[in-house]
Each structure stands twice: as structure tokens, then as C-alpha cells.
């Protein structure tokens, strides 16, 4: 399968000065194939949202791409014109945001929002737009009559489904979801995720799923990428990451989720503070909090990216140099 989205060496900065004050994403490689779910996990300041925005060309000043490339379906996104980006958005690549009320206009009926979006992408007939909107609502299992309602008349879960329907109505090839269920109840969340899974099977789009909830990703993602302080510190197939995490941060992050069953044990979070992106130490950004910290190495030299088992990547000195990991 050829890649739907290929990100290579992407570096994104925030700030008006040059070089910008904050490097939100540094030197990230990521690939997404059609029909695949790639989960991106990290905490605040990890750069996961910035990465997602950059992936579909939604970065606005003061954020800007400093280096690297993003190729969507073969075309370079970072150099697209506004018009090209506009055409790409919604039609080929779509995004679902965390708060549905950030997307839906509270003073218009939901149907008109669908119409507006479709009209901007060539569907000018009202009937055609209505038909497509109804189909989209069927896909996400929201009763059709809610198309004529105002957003506040729907519950949170339904609104989020409506937003997903909106994102899918033009049948994009790539769907980027930024914490789509974080604000929702866990029961609603499960139902929505199930729908998403079914839809992916039917329509075959690729998904980038951003969240802080690692246990969620283990269930729904094919591959998971872990981000810390703007760097992609580990990437692996979901199950393998869960059973055998390599990067110390991944290990610690997994340990930060108390289990639902089993022995009750005292766990510890990750000591220290999340890094200040304006003032990153040299070497590995996780070094100050890492239990496997190697003085003279981790705080001086940038960690290398090591390929393990052919399909896994880790950014860590523990795993030696690139050559060392044939297995």
C-alpha cells in the first residue's frame, strides 16, 4: 500500500522572532497508509496537536514550518497555495476537533452548515447537499431529523457524531481527530469509537488519532507514536507497544494509568515537571526525568533514532546506534 501521508523531518516553530521562541515539533517522521489508524499520544506540550495541524496544512502564524516535508497523496502540503489548501481541506483531508461547539455555528441549523461546507467544494444543489448530509448522518447513526435542529438541542455525544459526519460528508481520504472524545462520557465515547471503526472499514480512510489516553489507543490504533517535547520518541504497532514498550517515557506513561483490575499497588507518576519548550536542555528532552539517565550522554548528545525489529522506532541512547539492533 502506498502511503497516504508522508511526513519527513518536520520541524515546526511558534513565535514571531527568527528563530522562533518555541520549537513545537522537531524532526518528526511519520507515515499513514490508507485504511490505517495511527495514534499519536502525548501530554500537553508534546507537540501532538501541532503535528496534526501541520499534517493537513492548518498551521496559522505565529506557527510555521521551519523545515521538512509533508506529502499528502504525493503532493507537498507545506508549499501549497491557500487555494490548493482550501480545496484539499474537507474534501481530501478533514479534521475533527475536541470541542464540537468549536465547529458548529450555534445560531444556524446543522443542515445549513453542511450546505455551506459542501457548496464551497462544488456541491451547489440544495437537494444534493441534503441527500449527502442525510447519508452522513446515517453513517454516524444520528437520526436525520437532527439536521434541522440547532447544535445546542443535541447532546454532547450526538453533537460530536454530527461533527464527524460533517468531516466525512465529502468522503475524505484522511481523517485527523484531535481528542475527539475527551470531553465526552466514557459510554458515549465507546459508542462513537465503535462507529468510527465500522466507518473506517466501510470507507477505507486513513486516520490520525490524537489523544493523551494511551489505553484508548491500544484498543483502536494499528500503530502508535509517542511524542514528548516535540520529538517522536517511539513508534510501534499498538499491541507491541503495549506489551513491550522500549522508551523510558513510554514505560512511565503506561505506568501512569492505574489498572481497573488486579492487585492494588502503589504507582508513581513521572517525577519532575514537563519541559519548558522555550528552554530545552541539550541532548534528550526527557533526560531530566528519566530513570535510565546516563550522564555525559543523554544530557549532551541528541538521542539517535534506532530501528528495532524492522517496524519499530525508538529515539533513545539505551538502544545504541542505528546498526546495533538487528534481531
Amino acid at each position: 500500500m502506498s502511503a497516504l501521508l508522508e511526513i519527513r523531518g518536520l520541524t515546526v516553530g511558534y513565535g514571531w522572532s527568527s528563530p522562533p521562541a518555541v520549537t513545537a515539533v522537531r524532526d518528526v517522521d511519520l507515515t499513514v497508509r490508507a485504511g490505517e489508524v495511527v495514534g499519536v499520544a502525548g501530554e500537553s506540550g508534546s507537540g501532538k496537536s501541532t503535528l496534526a495541524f501541520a499534517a493537513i496544512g492548518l498551521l496559522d502564524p505565529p506557527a510555521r514550518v521551519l523545515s521538512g516535508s509533508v506529502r499528502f497523496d504525493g503532493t507537498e502540503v507545506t508549499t501549497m497555495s491557500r487555494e490548493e489548501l482550501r480545496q484539499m481541506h474537507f474534501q481530501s483531508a478533514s479534521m475533527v476537533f475536541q470541542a464540537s461547539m468549536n465547529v458548529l455555528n450555534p445560531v444556524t441549523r446543522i443542515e445549513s452548515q453542511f450546505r455551506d461546507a459542501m457548496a464551497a467544494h462544488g456541491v451547489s444543489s440544495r437537494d444534493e447537499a441534503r441527500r449527502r448530509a442525510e447519508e452522513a448522518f446515517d453513517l454516524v447513526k444520528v437520526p436525520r431529523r437532527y439536521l434541522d435542529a440547532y447544535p445546542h438541542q443535541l447532546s454532547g455525544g450526538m453533537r460530536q457524531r454530527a461533527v464527524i459526519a460533517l468531516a466525512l460528508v465529502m468522503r475524505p481520504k484522511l481523517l485527523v481527530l484531535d481528542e475527539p472524545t475527551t470531553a465526552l462520557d466514557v459510554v458515549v465515547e465507546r459508542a462513537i469509537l465503535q462507529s468510527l471503526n465500522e466507518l473506517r472499514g466501510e470507507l477505507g480512510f486513513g486516520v490520525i488519532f490524537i489523544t493523551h489516553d494511551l489505553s484508548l489507543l491500544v484498543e483502536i490504533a494499528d500503530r502508535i507514536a509517542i511524542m514528548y517535547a516535540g520529538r517522536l520518541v517511539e513508534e510501534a504497532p499498538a499491541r507491541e507497544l503495549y506489551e513491550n514498550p522500549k522508551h523510558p517515557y513510554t514505560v512511565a506513561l503506561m505506568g501512569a494509568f492505574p489498572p481497573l483490575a488486579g492487585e492494588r499497588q502503589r504507582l508513581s507518576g513521572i517525577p519532575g515537571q514537563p519541559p519548558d519548550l522555550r528552554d530545552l536542555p541539550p541532548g534528550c528532552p526527557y533526560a531530566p526525568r528519566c530513570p535510565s539517565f546516563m550522564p555525559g550522554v543523554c544530557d549532551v548528545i541528541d538521542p539517535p533514532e534506532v530501528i528495532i525489529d524492522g517496524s519499530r522506532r525508538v529515539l533513545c541512547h539505551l538502544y545504541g546506534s542505528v546498526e546495533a539492533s538487528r534481531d
Partner: protein
Amino acid sequence: MTSPTTLSGTDVNPASAPLLEVRGLSTVYGVGRVGRRQEVAALTDLDLTVARGEVLGLVGESGSGKTTFARTLVYLERLTAGTIAVDGEVMPKHPSVARLREHRRKVQMIFQDPYSSLDPLHTVAHAITQPLRAFNIVSRRQERAEVEELLQQVGLTPVKDFFSRYPHELSGGQRQRVGIARALAARPKLLIADEPTSMLDVSIRLTIMNLLLDLQDSHGLSLIFITHDLAAARYVSDRIAIMYAGRLVEIGPAGVVLGEPIHPYTMLLRNAVPDPTQSSVARIQAEERGEPPDLTALPVGCAFAPRCEFAREECLVGFPAWRRGGEGHEARCVLVDEESP
């Protein structure tokens, strides 16, 4: 004063009188303008007991009433019916200002959002000093030492560094620690933590939960830990109570409620939580049946019945009474004490 019993009437070991006793608590408030007023039944007929030194996890989703419950316990909301008793003393229905102050000295609250629960214009020291002064905990001269001691206890060290800082100079976790210090300043007996970690980064959550557990242990406090996160509730709590549509529906020891739930809603919650330790095949797939309950128009009978896959006719008659499922484990469901579904 009757000895503590479980809600269905069984005697519990009355080793010590309970710290908090809530009976028949209801909170109803009106929304909307004159003429189109609707009543929201946020809490209905709640019975709850919290023992000294106990950690009770209160679990519910949005609309369950858990935050209203917390606010009612500290009188930020007015209750419409029922009684609250702390340390054996029942609170009057319309407490005076003095009585309220006395109550808040014993029952303190930690708020959910560390980014808005501290006055942005006040330093850390100022924020912690205010309850010290309002409740006359120490003399003016001893204030500084007391604040330093509290900062030490919540792990904001070196203490001198944090004294004069403003909230925007602190991380989310640090702000929450200040919130905890502020609550502790009153030297309360009962702490109510309203979703204290849901707005924090994952890696910080455990440190705050551990802090709360340590403080609870060293000060002999009772703690009500309110959350929608089942796993967090399990980590922290001795007992867990599940809320739905303004009522308690299940209560029991933490491991038992989560491991062998007897109320269908608890089962639904349990299966909806992402749990990589279980294989996907074995889980009951939860459909989004119906809507979360409309608190302005609750059905007669069990509020969960419209969404319950085991619902029967008797469920529609009246809200089920408490029934025992095991030692200290009860639920308000007609299915309890019968074959497990």
C-alpha cells in the same frame, strides 16, 4: 443517633460513629426565565455515610449529580430536602452565617479546574492565608510559619520559592497542590475532591492522587474523591459509590463494585472503559441506547430503565429500593439477589 447501618438496613460494625451522614438529600433548582421555568432534579433522595479516615470514591458521568452533591455538601448549593450531619451534628435547614463557617471548617473542598480555582491576582501565600484568617486557625504572628508548613506538606518545596508566586507562574499540578494546601489550612475532617485530576496531564495525576492519599493517611481525614474515571476511583478508594441521574445506584468495597458489579449501569460503565488487559472479544459491546436522562423530566421508576438491557416491568413502577448483594455491597436494582444476568 442510630448506629450506622447499610442503606438496606443491615448493621455495620459500629466501631466508630460515622463522620458524615447524609439522609434523603435532594437538591432541585430552577432554570429558565419567569413563565418558562423548569426544575432540574439534580439530586434525589440520597443516603450516604462516610466513616472516619475512609476514602469514598464517587463515580458518575456528567449529569449524574456528583458535582452538585459536592457543592451541596459545602453549601454552595441549597438543598431542598434531607439532612446533612457532620460529626453527629445535624445541620439546620437554613444555617446561619456562623453555623456555615463552623461547617466549612470541618468540610473543605478541592476544585476541579486548577486554572480557575485560584485568584490570578493573589500570591500562593495569600491564597493559603485567607482560610487561616477566616477561620482563625492561628494568630497573625504564626501565619507565615503555618503557610510554610502547609506548602511543605503538599510538596511545594523549596517553600521559599513558592511563597510569592502567582498562579500563572505555576504548572497545573502545582496549582492543584496550592488548592489542596488551601483546603487543608482549615484543618478539616472531611475533604471533598471534585475531579481533582481530570484537568491535569496524565503523568501528574498519579502524583496528586498519591499526595491526597498520603495526606489523608497522615491527617486521619475522610476523603470523598469524585471522578468519572473508574480506574482512578479504584486506585484511591476504599469504597466506591456509583451515581446516576442524581441518585446513588450502587455502593460497596472498591474492588468488589468494579470486579463484580451488580447494577447494570455499573456494568455498562465498566465495559465502556478502555482496558487493554482485556481482549476486545470478551467485552459486552455497549450501544448508545437512548439518551442520558433528562433531569427536568425524570421517568417514574428506575431512571436507568430506558437504557437497560435487562429492564422489566417492575422497573417502571418506582425507583428500586436498596438491596444487598454481598458484604457491604448494595445496589438499587430489582435484579439483585436473583440469578446474575
